[in-house]
Protein backbone atom coordinates (compact mmCIF):
# COMPACT_ATOMS: atom_id res chain seq x y z
CA UNK A 1 0.00 0.00 0.00
CA UNK A 2 1.63 3.22 -1.02
CA UNK A 3 0.65 6.80 -0.78
CA UNK A 4 1.61 9.23 -3.40
CA UNK A 5 2.41 12.85 -3.18
CA UNK A 6 -0.75 13.75 -4.98
CA UNK A 7 -2.59 13.11 -1.74
CA UNK A 8 -1.23 16.29 -0.27
CA UNK A 9 -4.16 18.59 0.36
CA UNK A 10 -4.62 21.06 -2.38
CA UNK A 11 -4.77 24.51 -0.90
CA UNK A 12 -7.54 25.29 -3.35
CA UNK A 13 -10.25 23.67 -1.24
CA UNK A 14 -9.11 25.38 1.93
CA UNK A 15 -9.01 28.75 0.27
CA UNK A 16 -12.41 28.17 -1.29
CA UNK A 17 -13.79 27.15 2.08
CA UNK A 18 -12.42 30.25 3.73
CA UNK A 19 -13.74 32.57 1.08
CA UNK A 20 -17.17 30.97 0.90
CA UNK A 21 -17.70 30.75 4.62
CA UNK A 22 -16.49 34.23 5.43
CA UNK A 23 -18.57 35.57 2.59
CA UNK A 24 -21.64 33.64 3.61
CA UNK A 25 -21.38 34.68 7.26
CA UNK A 26 -20.88 38.31 6.32
CA UNK A 27 -23.87 38.21 4.01
CA UNK A 28 -25.92 36.36 6.58
CA UNK A 29 -25.33 39.09 9.11
CA UNK A 30 -25.43 42.20 7.00
CA UNK A 31 -27.23 41.65 3.76
CA UNK A 32 -30.08 39.20 4.21
CA UNK A 33 -33.36 40.54 5.58
CA UNK A 34 -34.74 39.52 8.95
CA UNK A 35 -36.95 36.48 9.08
CA UNK A 36 -40.61 37.39 9.47
CA UNK A 37 -41.28 35.00 12.34
CA UNK A 38 -38.12 34.71 14.28
CA UNK A 39 -36.20 37.86 13.66
CA UNK A 40 -32.48 38.10 13.98
CA UNK A 41 -31.94 34.78 15.70
CA UNK A 42 -33.02 32.91 12.63
CA UNK A 43 -29.70 33.73 11.01
CA UNK A 44 -28.10 30.77 12.71
CA UNK A 45 -30.09 28.76 10.21
CA UNK A 46 -27.59 29.75 7.55
CA UNK A 47 -24.84 27.89 9.30
CA UNK A 48 -26.81 25.27 11.22
CA UNK A 49 -28.56 23.59 8.33
CA UNK A 50 -25.53 23.52 6.00
CA UNK A 51 -23.52 21.99 8.83
CA UNK A 52 -26.20 19.35 9.26
CA UNK A 53 -26.36 18.50 5.59
CA UNK A 54 -22.58 18.38 5.38
CA UNK A 55 -22.51 15.97 8.29
CA UNK A 56 -24.98 13.72 6.47
CA UNK A 57 -22.82 13.97 3.37
CA UNK A 58 -19.79 12.87 5.37
CA UNK A 59 -21.65 9.86 6.77
CA UNK A 60 -22.81 8.86 3.32
CA UNK A 61 -19.31 9.28 1.97
CA UNK A 62 -18.04 7.07 4.79
CA UNK A 63 -20.63 4.43 3.96
CA UNK A 64 -19.69 4.57 0.30
CA UNK A 65 -16.02 4.02 1.15
CA UNK A 66 -17.04 1.27 3.53
CA UNK A 67 -18.93 -0.46 0.75
CA UNK A 68 -15.89 -0.17 -1.50
CA UNK A 69 -13.76 -1.71 1.22
CA UNK A 70 -16.00 -4.72 1.57
CA UNK A 71 -16.25 -5.06 -2.18
CA UNK A 72 -12.64 -4.64 -3.16
CA UNK A 73 -11.00 -5.74 0.09
CA UNK A 74 -8.59 -2.86 -0.29
CA UNK A 75 -7.58 -1.48 3.08
CA UNK A 76 -6.94 1.92 1.62
CA UNK A 77 -10.67 2.54 1.92
CA UNK A 78 -10.59 1.93 5.64
CA UNK A 79 -8.69 5.15 6.29
CA UNK A 80 -10.99 7.07 4.00
CA UNK A 81 -14.11 5.72 5.65
CA UNK A 82 -12.74 6.39 9.12
CA UNK A 83 -11.74 9.94 8.28
CA UNK A 84 -15.16 10.61 6.76
CA UNK A 85 -16.87 9.37 9.92
CA UNK A 86 -14.58 11.60 11.94
CA UNK A 87 -15.57 14.59 9.81
CA UNK A 88 -19.21 13.66 10.11
CA UNK A 89 -19.02 13.52 13.88
CA UNK A 90 -17.23 16.85 14.04
CA UNK A 91 -19.82 18.51 11.86
CA UNK A 92 -22.49 16.70 13.83
CA UNK A 93 -21.22 18.19 17.06
CA UNK A 94 -21.21 21.62 15.44
CA UNK A 95 -24.77 21.00 14.29
CA UNK A 96 -25.84 20.09 17.79
CA UNK A 97 -24.08 23.11 19.25
CA UNK A 98 -25.47 25.59 16.73
CA UNK A 99 -28.89 24.03 17.09
CA UNK A 100 -28.70 24.33 20.82
CA UNK A 101 -27.65 27.96 20.58
CA UNK A 102 -30.53 28.63 18.24
CA UNK A 103 -32.97 26.98 20.62
CA UNK A 104 -31.57 29.06 23.47
CA UNK A 105 -31.84 32.31 21.58
CA UNK A 106 -35.23 31.60 20.13
CA UNK A 107 -37.04 29.79 22.87
CA UNK A 108 -34.91 30.12 25.97
CA UNK A 109 -34.04 26.43 26.32
CA UNK A 110 -30.76 24.72 25.53
CA UNK A 111 -32.42 21.57 24.26
CA UNK A 112 -35.74 20.75 22.64
CA UNK A 113 -36.99 17.26 21.91
CA UNK A 114 -39.37 18.73 19.35
CA UNK A 115 -36.55 19.65 17.03
CA UNK A 116 -36.38 16.56 14.84
CA UNK A 117 -33.02 17.39 13.34
CA UNK A 118 -31.44 17.84 16.73
CA UNK A 119 -32.84 14.60 18.07
CA UNK A 120 -31.73 12.75 14.97
CA UNK A 121 -28.25 14.16 15.32
CA UNK A 122 -28.16 13.15 18.93
CA UNK A 123 -28.95 9.56 17.99
CA UNK A 124 -26.38 9.62 15.20
CA UNK A 125 -23.82 11.16 17.49
CA UNK A 126 -24.28 8.27 19.90
CA UNK A 127 -24.09 5.78 17.08
CA UNK A 128 -20.93 7.13 15.50
CA UNK A 129 -19.27 7.68 18.85
CA UNK A 130 -19.72 3.94 19.33
CA UNK A 131 -17.93 3.60 15.99
CA UNK A 132 -14.83 5.07 17.61
CA UNK A 133 -15.22 2.86 20.65
CA UNK A 134 -15.33 -0.08 18.28
CA UNK A 135 -12.17 1.00 16.50
CA UNK A 136 -10.29 1.55 19.75
CA UNK A 137 -11.16 -1.81 21.16
CA UNK A 138 -10.19 -3.96 18.19
CA UNK A 139 -6.58 -4.42 17.15
CA UNK A 140 -5.68 -2.77 13.85
CA UNK A 141 -5.90 -5.03 10.86
CA UNK A 142 -8.24 -6.27 8.17
CA UNK A 143 -10.72 -7.51 10.74
CA UNK A 144 -11.13 -4.10 12.30
CA UNK A 145 -11.44 -2.50 8.88
CA UNK A 146 -14.26 -4.82 7.89
CA UNK A 147 -16.15 -4.48 11.15
CA UNK A 148 -15.88 -0.70 10.99
CA UNK A 149 -17.12 -0.78 7.42
CA UNK A 150 -20.14 -2.88 8.31
CA UNK A 151 -20.93 -0.56 11.18
CA UNK A 152 -20.61 2.52 8.98
CA UNK A 153 -23.10 0.96 6.58
CA UNK A 154 -25.50 0.32 9.43
CA UNK A 155 -25.16 4.01 10.22
CA UNK A 156 -26.53 5.28 6.95
CA UNK A 157 -29.37 2.80 7.13
CA UNK A 158 -30.10 4.09 10.60
CA UNK A 159 -30.41 7.69 9.36
CA UNK A 160 -33.73 7.35 7.54
CA UNK A 161 -35.06 4.74 9.96
CA UNK A 162 -34.33 6.99 12.94
CA UNK A 163 -35.85 9.96 11.19
CA UNK A 164 -39.02 8.00 10.64
CA UNK A 165 -38.97 6.83 14.23
CA UNK A 166 -38.58 10.35 15.56
CA UNK A 167 -41.49 11.53 13.46
CA UNK A 168 -43.64 8.68 14.70
CA UNK A 169 -42.54 9.32 18.26
CA UNK A 170 -43.90 12.83 18.18
CA UNK A 171 -47.37 11.36 18.27
CA UNK A 172 -47.07 10.13 21.75
CA UNK A 173 -44.26 12.16 23.24
CA UNK A 174 -46.51 15.25 22.97
CA UNK A 175 -43.74 17.79 22.69
CA UNK A 176 -44.30 21.44 23.32
CA UNK A 177 -44.40 22.69 19.79
CA UNK A 178 -42.54 25.83 19.05
CA UNK A 179 -43.14 27.90 15.98
CA UNK A 180 -42.58 25.93 12.86
CA UNK A 181 -39.83 27.24 10.76
CA UNK A 182 -40.70 26.75 7.18
CA UNK A 183 -38.22 26.48 4.36
CA UNK A 184 -39.74 29.24 2.31
CA UNK A 185 -36.86 31.43 1.51
CA UNK A 186 -36.73 34.68 -0.34
CA UNK A 187 -34.25 34.86 -3.19
CA UNK A 188 -31.48 36.54 -1.24
CA UNK A 189 -31.86 34.06 1.61
CA UNK A 190 -31.45 31.20 -0.79
CA UNK A 191 -28.27 32.64 -2.23
CA UNK A 192 -26.67 33.00 1.19
CA UNK A 193 -27.81 29.55 2.14
CA UNK A 194 -26.19 28.07 -0.93
CA UNK A 195 -22.99 29.98 -0.34
CA UNK A 196 -22.86 28.76 3.22
CA UNK A 197 -23.61 25.21 2.15
CA UNK A 198 -20.86 25.28 -0.45
CA UNK A 199 -18.52 26.72 2.14
CA UNK A 200 -19.30 23.95 4.63
CA UNK A 201 -18.76 21.27 2.03
CA UNK A 202 -15.51 22.86 1.01
CA UNK A 203 -14.43 23.02 4.63
CA UNK A 204 -15.34 19.38 5.14
CA UNK A 205 -13.45 18.49 2.00
CA UNK A 206 -10.36 20.42 3.01
CA UNK A 207 -10.32 18.97 6.52
CA UNK A 208 -10.95 15.49 5.12
CA UNK A 209 -8.05 15.71 2.73
CA UNK A 210 -5.74 17.09 5.38
CA UNK A 211 -6.57 14.44 7.92
CA UNK A 212 -6.45 11.67 5.35
CA UNK A 213 -3.06 12.83 4.13
CA UNK A 214 -1.82 12.90 7.68
CA UNK A 215 -3.06 9.40 8.36
CA UNK A 216 -1.60 8.09 5.15
CA UNK A 217 1.74 9.61 6.03
CA UNK A 218 1.56 7.79 9.35
CA UNK A 219 0.95 4.53 7.58
CA UNK A 220 3.75 5.16 5.11
CA UNK A 221 6.12 6.01 7.93
CA UNK A 222 5.30 2.79 9.69
CA UNK A 223 5.82 0.83 6.49
CA UNK A 224 9.22 2.41 6.03
CA UNK A 225 10.22 1.70 9.60
CA UNK A 226 9.26 -1.89 9.11
CA UNK A 227 11.15 -2.18 5.89
CA UNK A 228 14.25 -0.78 7.50
CA UNK A 229 14.04 -2.96 10.57
Amino acid at each position, binding site marked *: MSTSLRNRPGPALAVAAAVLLVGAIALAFYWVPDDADQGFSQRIFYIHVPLAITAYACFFWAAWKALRLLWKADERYDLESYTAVHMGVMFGILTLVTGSIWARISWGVWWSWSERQLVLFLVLFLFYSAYFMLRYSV*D*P*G*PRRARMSAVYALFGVVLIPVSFLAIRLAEDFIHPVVFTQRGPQMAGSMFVVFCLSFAGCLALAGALYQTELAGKRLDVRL*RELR*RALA
Partner: protein
Amino acid sequence: MISARDLSKRFGEKEVLRDVDVEVARGGFLLVTGRNGSGKSTLLRLFAGLLAPSDGELAVEVERHAVGYVGHEPLVYRELTSVENLELYGRLYRVPERRERIGMLLERYGLWDARHERVSTYSRGMQQRLALCRALLHDPELLLLDEPFAGLDREGATLLDGELGELVATRTFVVASHQPERLERFATAGLALA
Protein backbone atom coordinates in the same frame (compact mmCIF):
# COMPACT_ATOMS: atom_id res chain seq x y z
CA MET B 1 -1.56 -27.08 -3.66
CA ILE B 2 -0.26 -24.27 -1.47
CA SER B 3 1.93 -21.54 -2.79
CA ALA B 4 3.21 -18.65 -0.68
CA ARG B 5 5.49 -15.85 -1.79
CA ASP B 6 6.80 -13.04 0.41
CA LEU B 7 4.06 -13.91 2.82
CA SER B 8 3.96 -11.59 5.82
CA LYS B 9 1.57 -11.22 8.71
CA ARG B 10 1.38 -8.45 11.22
CA PHE B 11 -0.87 -8.01 14.20
CA GLY B 12 -0.94 -4.28 14.72
CA GLU B 13 2.68 -3.34 15.09
CA LYS B 14 3.93 -6.82 15.87
CA GLU B 15 5.33 -8.65 12.88
CA VAL B 16 4.84 -12.38 13.26
CA LEU B 17 5.75 -13.64 9.81
CA ARG B 18 8.05 -12.01 7.36
CA ASP B 19 8.66 -12.81 3.70
CA VAL B 20 7.86 -16.51 3.90
CA ASP B 21 8.34 -18.41 0.64
CA VAL B 22 7.07 -21.94 0.51
CA GLU B 23 5.36 -24.36 -1.84
CA VAL B 24 3.50 -27.48 -0.92
CA ALA B 25 2.74 -29.88 -3.74
CA ARG B 26 -0.27 -32.13 -3.73
CA GLY B 27 0.54 -35.20 -1.66
CA GLY B 28 3.45 -33.48 0.03
CA PHE B 29 4.20 -33.20 3.72
CA LEU B 30 5.55 -29.88 4.93
CA LEU B 31 7.05 -29.89 8.38
CA VAL B 32 7.10 -26.44 9.95
CA THR B 33 9.54 -26.00 12.79
CA GLY B 34 10.58 -23.18 15.02
CA ARG B 35 10.55 -22.23 18.64
CA ASN B 36 7.49 -20.91 20.43
CA GLY B 37 6.32 -17.63 19.08
CA SER B 38 7.99 -18.03 15.70
CA GLY B 39 4.71 -17.89 13.86
CA LYS B 40 4.00 -21.56 13.17
CA SER B 41 0.40 -21.32 14.30
CA THR B 42 -0.09 -18.10 12.39
CA LEU B 43 1.20 -19.74 9.24
CA LEU B 44 -1.22 -22.61 9.59
CA ARG B 45 -4.09 -20.26 10.24
CA LEU B 46 -3.17 -18.36 7.11
CA PHE B 47 -3.19 -21.58 5.11
CA ALA B 48 -6.57 -22.49 6.60
CA GLY B 49 -8.01 -19.17 5.52
CA LEU B 50 -8.69 -17.99 9.06
CA LEU B 51 -6.35 -15.05 8.59
CA ALA B 52 -5.61 -12.83 5.63
CA PRO B 53 -2.01 -12.00 4.74
CA SER B 54 -0.72 -8.53 5.54
CA ASP B 55 1.62 -8.65 2.57
CA GLY B 56 2.69 -11.05 -0.11
CA GLU B 57 0.77 -13.72 -1.95
CA LEU B 58 -0.87 -16.88 -0.79
CA ALA B 59 -2.73 -19.37 -2.94
CA VAL B 60 -4.39 -22.42 -1.46
CA GLU B 61 -6.01 -24.53 -4.13
CA VAL B 62 -8.44 -26.45 -2.06
CA GLU B 63 -11.99 -25.78 -0.97
CA ARG B 64 -13.13 -25.38 2.57
CA HIS B 65 -14.88 -28.72 2.75
CA ALA B 66 -11.63 -30.49 1.96
CA VAL B 67 -9.52 -28.90 4.69
CA GLY B 68 -8.98 -30.48 8.08
CA TYR B 69 -7.50 -28.26 10.79
CA VAL B 70 -6.20 -29.00 14.25
CA GLY B 71 -5.22 -25.92 16.21
CA HIS B 72 -4.25 -25.14 19.75
CA GLU B 73 -7.85 -25.40 20.86
CA PRO B 74 -9.62 -28.70 20.26
CA LEU B 75 -12.51 -26.75 18.69
CA VAL B 76 -15.22 -28.83 20.22
CA TYR B 77 -18.15 -27.66 22.31
CA ARG B 78 -17.39 -28.55 25.90
CA GLU B 79 -20.99 -28.90 26.96
CA LEU B 80 -21.81 -31.35 24.20
CA THR B 81 -20.81 -35.00 24.04
CA SER B 82 -18.29 -36.22 21.53
CA VAL B 83 -21.03 -37.86 19.52
CA GLU B 84 -23.00 -34.62 19.45
CA ASN B 85 -19.93 -32.65 18.45
CA LEU B 86 -19.08 -35.00 15.61
CA GLU B 87 -22.71 -35.11 14.53
CA LEU B 88 -22.64 -31.33 14.27
CA TYR B 89 -19.50 -31.26 12.17
CA GLY B 90 -20.64 -34.28 10.23
CA ARG B 91 -23.77 -32.47 9.17
CA LEU B 92 -22.01 -29.22 8.40
CA TYR B 93 -19.44 -31.03 6.27
CA ARG B 94 -22.12 -33.29 4.74
CA VAL B 95 -20.19 -36.40 5.61
CA PRO B 96 -21.68 -39.44 3.86
CA GLU B 97 -22.61 -42.35 6.14
CA ARG B 98 -22.14 -40.04 9.03
CA ARG B 99 -23.08 -42.35 11.88
CA GLU B 100 -20.84 -45.13 10.77
CA ARG B 101 -17.90 -42.86 10.20
CA ILE B 102 -18.33 -41.23 13.60
CA GLY B 103 -18.53 -44.62 15.26
CA MET B 104 -15.48 -45.83 13.45
CA LEU B 105 -13.38 -42.81 14.37
CA LEU B 106 -14.45 -42.77 18.00
CA GLU B 107 -13.60 -46.40 18.34
CA ARG B 108 -10.28 -46.10 16.58
CA TYR B 109 -9.25 -43.27 18.89
CA GLY B 110 -10.44 -44.98 22.03
CA LEU B 111 -13.29 -42.59 22.74
CA TRP B 112 -16.14 -44.99 22.14
CA ASP B 113 -16.84 -45.67 25.80
CA ALA B 114 -16.96 -42.03 26.70
CA ARG B 115 -18.94 -41.00 23.66
CA HIS B 116 -22.05 -39.93 25.57
CA GLU B 117 -20.19 -37.86 28.12
CA ARG B 118 -19.68 -34.15 27.86
CA VAL B 119 -16.33 -33.08 26.54
CA SER B 120 -15.82 -30.97 29.66
CA THR B 121 -15.25 -34.23 31.53
CA TYR B 122 -12.52 -35.36 29.17
CA SER B 123 -8.83 -35.18 29.90
CA ARG B 124 -6.60 -33.05 27.74
CA GLY B 125 -5.42 -36.11 25.88
CA MET B 126 -8.96 -37.24 25.15
CA GLN B 127 -9.90 -33.79 23.92
CA GLN B 128 -6.93 -33.82 21.59
CA ARG B 129 -7.99 -37.19 20.25
CA LEU B 130 -11.46 -35.84 19.67
CA ALA B 131 -9.94 -32.90 17.85
CA LEU B 132 -8.19 -35.33 15.55
CA CYS B 133 -11.46 -37.17 14.97
CA ARG B 134 -13.08 -33.87 14.12
CA ALA B 135 -10.37 -32.97 11.63
CA LEU B 136 -10.45 -36.38 9.97
CA LEU B 137 -14.21 -36.79 9.96
CA HIS B 138 -14.83 -35.39 6.51
CA ASP B 139 -11.86 -37.14 4.94
CA PRO B 140 -10.06 -33.95 3.93
CA GLU B 141 -7.49 -33.63 1.16
CA LEU B 142 -5.42 -31.09 3.05
CA LEU B 143 -4.59 -31.53 6.71
CA LEU B 144 -3.22 -28.62 8.69
CA LEU B 145 -2.04 -29.85 12.08
CA ASP B 146 -0.67 -27.49 14.71
CA GLU B 147 1.22 -29.48 17.33
CA PRO B 148 -0.98 -32.54 16.88
CA PHE B 149 0.92 -34.59 19.45
CA ALA B 150 0.36 -32.03 22.22
CA GLY B 151 -1.39 -33.60 25.18
CA LEU B 152 -1.43 -37.10 23.77
CA ASP B 153 -0.30 -40.00 25.91
CA ARG B 154 1.83 -42.75 24.44
CA GLU B 155 -1.15 -44.68 23.20
CA GLY B 156 -2.66 -41.65 21.55
CA ALA B 157 0.67 -40.76 19.97
CA THR B 158 0.95 -44.27 18.56
CA LEU B 159 -2.54 -43.98 17.11
CA LEU B 160 -1.67 -40.70 15.48
CA ASP B 161 1.55 -42.09 14.10
CA GLY B 162 -0.41 -44.91 12.55
CA GLU B 163 -2.98 -42.55 11.10
CA LEU B 164 -0.32 -40.35 9.58
CA GLY B 165 1.42 -43.34 8.12
CA GLU B 166 -1.79 -44.46 6.46
CA LEU B 167 -2.77 -41.11 5.08
CA VAL B 168 0.53 -39.58 4.13
CA ALA B 169 0.59 -41.22 0.73
CA THR B 170 -2.73 -39.82 -0.45
CA ARG B 171 -3.19 -36.56 1.44
CA THR B 172 -1.35 -33.29 1.69
CA PHE B 173 -0.04 -32.32 5.11
CA VAL B 174 1.29 -29.22 6.76
CA VAL B 175 2.31 -30.00 10.30
CA ALA B 176 3.79 -27.59 12.80
CA SER B 177 5.80 -28.95 15.66
CA HIS B 178 8.50 -27.74 17.95
CA GLN B 179 9.61 -31.34 18.39
CA PRO B 180 9.94 -32.52 14.85
CA GLU B 181 11.78 -35.79 15.43
CA ARG B 182 8.64 -37.90 15.26
CA LEU B 183 7.57 -36.41 12.02
CA GLU B 184 10.78 -36.20 10.07
CA ARG B 185 10.26 -39.55 8.45
CA PHE B 186 7.05 -38.37 6.81
CA ALA B 187 8.29 -35.00 5.67
CA THR B 188 8.92 -34.22 2.04
CA ALA B 189 9.77 -30.61 2.76
CA GLY B 190 10.68 -28.50 5.75
CA LEU B 191 10.28 -24.88 6.73
CA ALA B 192 12.13 -23.47 9.69
CA LEU B 193 10.71 -20.26 11.07
CA ALA B 194 12.92 -17.89 12.99
